């Protein structure tokens, strides 16, 4: 999920914002695909030893949560049915849902794969008002996909998001200046998760005697600033239900800030050849995506999760920009070398690149570099036409023999290339 940011807490002119939030999205899609799963506790996860990505409401009733391992979830829900997720299916469904939303306004901002903001201020009169739009959207999504969503309506993004989270599944909640004071009076601050108040902030707020959203809005800004710094003012605005952040137009995506992949290994291992082979695979995928976006990176970050679930992460910024899998791999290896000799077996590897800059179509002084670039372009062309890793470095065979799970990472390029 994306981190929620709030703009200047200044009351903007009256706006009507909708938040459309798909309920238990991935699990609900799977229940639609397979009627035998309907009404049953379902957990969508990756292949092999991954964690739960989302759970159906039937599973949530047992306490199954995102991020649990399957054995953990099965302890509290023995009848849990694991289903391997299929991101293509979810992305394609999202894109089709966006088309429904775009029938009402072009101010549709994709907040995450299962959430969209809509600014219907200028168009609501054409459709009988915001409430009617919300009802129609819910009905259309249910008819087209059999899926349920919750819609929150409010004067800004923060309030519509709070409204959208209030009643699930299948909720429709309107918050306005008449009912906000009453609702905020009884709303615990931990319910503001998702609009910028995380569990730690909520805990700290409790510590200083602020227990409800209304109390947060009424708290002296100096008190909040003394505990939370510059964020204090923003937290106060949230408590007052103020936010003037605009809803972006559909297609105006924020620029990509980082590109990376992670992968849970088929089994824990301390075999350095296997680890490097997986690492190269992740770096090749990352490089392929970077080049696809026309970007180069200067920072590489490595994340390693060990068999005991402890983790290591380190980032390094280099003087030069890079976009090839080989170069990213070189950086990743450099970071990884600080862990050698390995004391624990590795469970998961993740690589991420940052400090991104538009690739300038660089030409190389030395022939061998130019040759490498040409080879990379040719390989990209083949893999784009025939599928990922049709042509690949020989070292990847080690990882393939060890077992590569079908989908490496959970981000597809398709979400960006509508």
């Amino acid at each position, binding site marked *: 999920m994306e981190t929620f940011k709030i703009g200047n807490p200044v009351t903007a002119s009256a706006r009507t914002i909708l938040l459309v939030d798909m309920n238990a999205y991935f699990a609900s899609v799977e229940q639609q*695909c*397979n009627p035998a799963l309907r009404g049953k506790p379902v957990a969508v996860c990756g292949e092999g030893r991954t964690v739960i990505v989302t759970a159906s409401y039937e599973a949530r009733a047992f306490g199954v949560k995102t991020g649990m391992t399957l054995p953990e979830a099965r302890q509290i829900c023995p009848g849990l049915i694991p289903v391997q997720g299929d991101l*293509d299916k979810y992305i394609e469904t999202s894109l089709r849902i966006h088309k429904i939303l775009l029938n009402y306004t072009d101010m549709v901002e994709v907040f995450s794969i299962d959430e969209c903001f809509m600014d219907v201020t200028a168009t609501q009169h054409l459709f009988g008002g915001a409430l009617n739009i919300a009802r129609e959207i819910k009905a259309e999504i249910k008819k087209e996909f059999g899926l349920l969503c919750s819609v929150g309506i409010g004067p800004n993004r923060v309030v519509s998001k709070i409204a959208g989270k209030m009643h699930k599944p299948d909720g429709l909640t309107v918050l306005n200046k008449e009912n906000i004071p009453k609702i905020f009076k009884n709303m615990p601050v931990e319910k503001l998760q998702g609009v910028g108040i995380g569990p730690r902030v909520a805990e700290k707020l409790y510590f200083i005697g602020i227990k409800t959203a209304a109390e947060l809005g009424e708290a002296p800004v100096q008190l909040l600033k003394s505990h939370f710094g510059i964020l204090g003012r923003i937290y106060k605005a949230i408590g007052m239900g103020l936010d003037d952040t605009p809803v972006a137009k559909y297609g105006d995506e924020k620029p990509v800030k980082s590109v990376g992949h992670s992968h849970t290994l088929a089994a824990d291992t301390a075999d350095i050849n296997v680890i490097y082979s997986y690492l190269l695979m992740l770096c090749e995928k990352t490089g392929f995506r970077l080049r696809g976006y026309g970007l180069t990176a200067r920072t590489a970050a490595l994340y390693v999760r060990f068999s005991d679930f402890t983790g290591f992460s380190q980032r390094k910024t280099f003087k030069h920009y890079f976009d090839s899998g080989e170069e990213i791999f070189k950086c990743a290896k450099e970071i990884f070398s600080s862990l050698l000799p390995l004391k624990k077996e590795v469970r998961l590897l993740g690589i991420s690149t940052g400090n991104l800059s538009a690739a300038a179509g660089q030409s190389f002084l030395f022939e061998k570099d130019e040759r490498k670039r040409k080879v990379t372009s040719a390989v990209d062309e083949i893999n784009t036409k025939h599928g990922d890793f049709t042509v690949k470095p020989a070292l990847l065979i080690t990882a393939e023999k060890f077992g590569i799970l079908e989908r490496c990472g959970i981000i597809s390029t398709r979400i960006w290339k509508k």
Partner: protein
Amino acid sequence: MPAEKINEKIKAGVVFGAAGPVPRWFTWRKKKILVTSVNYKWKSTDGKAVLLHFAVSADSGNYEISFNRDSMEWKLLKSEIL
């Protein structure tokens, strides 16, 4: 029973309507399987090829089949025999 990956070519009987192809039956391992409902459909890509996926039910179980728009091939990707 969990879904099993199959990934085998199949023959399919399909109605090409306004909303695109709708599978009515397919043969797999010499058995003709009548599709009783198409539960869900979506697209994916394999390189440049566009694949249409169908989650379908039959009396014998639930299946995922796909149609490659480039090669015009049908495949049974997954099966969950009841």
